[in-house]
């Protein structure tokens, strides 16, 4: 599938789009400075493993699909693996050298983020998850 189709598929049918009021989940809000995208992530940790992630909120196609792809790729990963993924993702969106093998199909944003204002959209869910992981590790 070409990048556009993967993004649209995740936008139209995102993974785990549901609010979680369950106490086992920590909630992390992440929003775009341009005051539009607004996503709540719900993360369930089991020691240092991310057992589950869900999300809820309102955002553009890039943010929603990026959230969905991130969730699909990171459920079951350790916090360390997830942080590594997040940092590789940032490298990609900063147009630096990055390890494609870590990101899986998240490479689909490689070109799109060259349009400056779409970069924050793609990074949005990763910023939220990064914050949740760092708080958990503390």
């Amino acid at each position, binding site marked *: 599938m070409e990048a556009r189709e993967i993004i*649209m598929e995740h936008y139209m049918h995102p993974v785990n789009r549901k609010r979680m009021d369950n106490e086992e989940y920590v909630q992390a809000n992440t929003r775009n400075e341009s*005051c539009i995208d607004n996503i709540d992530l719900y993360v369930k940790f089991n020691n240092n493993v991310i057992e589950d992630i869900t999300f809820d909120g*309102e955002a*553009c*196609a890039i943010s929603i699909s990026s959230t969905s792809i991130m969730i699909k790729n990171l459920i079951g990963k350790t916090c360390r693996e997830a942080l590594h993924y997040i940092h590789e993702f940032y490298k990609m969106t900063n147009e630096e050298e990055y390890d494609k093998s870590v990101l899986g199909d998240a490479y689909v944003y490689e070109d799109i983020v060259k349009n400056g204002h779409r970069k924050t*959209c793609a990074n949005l869910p990763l910023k939220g998850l990064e914050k949740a992981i760092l708080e958990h590790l503390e």
Partner: protein
Amino acid sequence: MNREDFPLLKEEIIYFDNGATSLKPKCVIDKMVDYYTNYPANAHRGDYDLSYKVDQEYEEVRELVKDFIHADALEEIVFTSGTTESLNMIVNGFFEPILEEGDEVLITTSEHASNVLPWFRLANKKGIQVNYIPLDSNYYLTIDNLKKTVTKNTKVISIAGVTNVIGDIRPIKDICKFAHENNIFVVVDGAQMVPHMHVDVKDLDVDFLAFSAHKMCGPTGVGVLYGKKELLEHLEPTVLGGGMNEAFDSPQEIYYKELPTRLEAGTRNIAGVIGFGEAIKYLNKIGMDHIHKYELSLRQYLIDKLIPIKHIDIINIESDSGIVTFNVVNVFSQDVAYYLNKYNICVRAGNHCAKILKSSVGVNNTVRVSLYFYNTYEEIDNLIELLSDYGKIVKEMI
């Protein structure tokens, strides 16, 4: 109209984000370059020709602004950095010292952040109440709803003259009449009003009016605080420093200058003010009534073409300004803006800084087209063509 005056309009670009800021005509840009090139001295500071010229140019703009909004006196015109600063000065410098716990300020849910947050802070600081005048089904503020909401504790009504999402023109004259009969002050956020229509502060009888130069062909970083002289006399300077004091020896002995200088501390945005003056001259030449009429006719043309498009939800079909707010069904507003950007059409997506409006409209984010006199029917045709094709929008939105 007047498109040839705007350097940017020679490019292939359609600019529909005039609610955010307007384009600048060449005469305004040239005027500021002239200042920086030929007489870049400070105002009120030097006894030499260059500085004298700066003073003259700067003060001439005060005269232009006074005439533009039909104020009584030059002392009533204070230059600020923009509407936001003006509103903050009004709230913090005038109302904070006189409002007491339990006093009520009425606003609406369609106000811009700059007419909400200063009041919210005052509520937290002094225990005043900030309450909302309910909007009608068109999201309009009606005088009837206002009358029903006012209580004996109401001290201030603080509202936009024209709102930035719905674009309705508020009945300011009637509101002021009713308010003043009940000893209530009226503050008007004129950011979306003054650039688009003839405004007469005496006829409206507003107590305070705030607006920005950059939304009316002027530069960024300049705005106006208008206040009735007898009220401005009591506005405590919120910024102290050079230019605004007459003398000081000790904390007990500080003497401020007269109005309006005492409210203009520090070196002002001289180039901006001078450029603003040129913008006012420019708008006067076209005529504010002419501008308003043309914008309404453009708006009607746009609305008539949008209504038949089934996948477009228009938020404000009825409105008396150049603001049209809508959504494309099942497409996030930012994605619509991004799609249009591919065709060099600039529109705004989001909540337009009116974050509490969602409680009334039930929609968080919208696409906003805001028109100005240099927009054309052909530009609207281009927009409509792109919005008509739902498949194309979905295909090209990422």
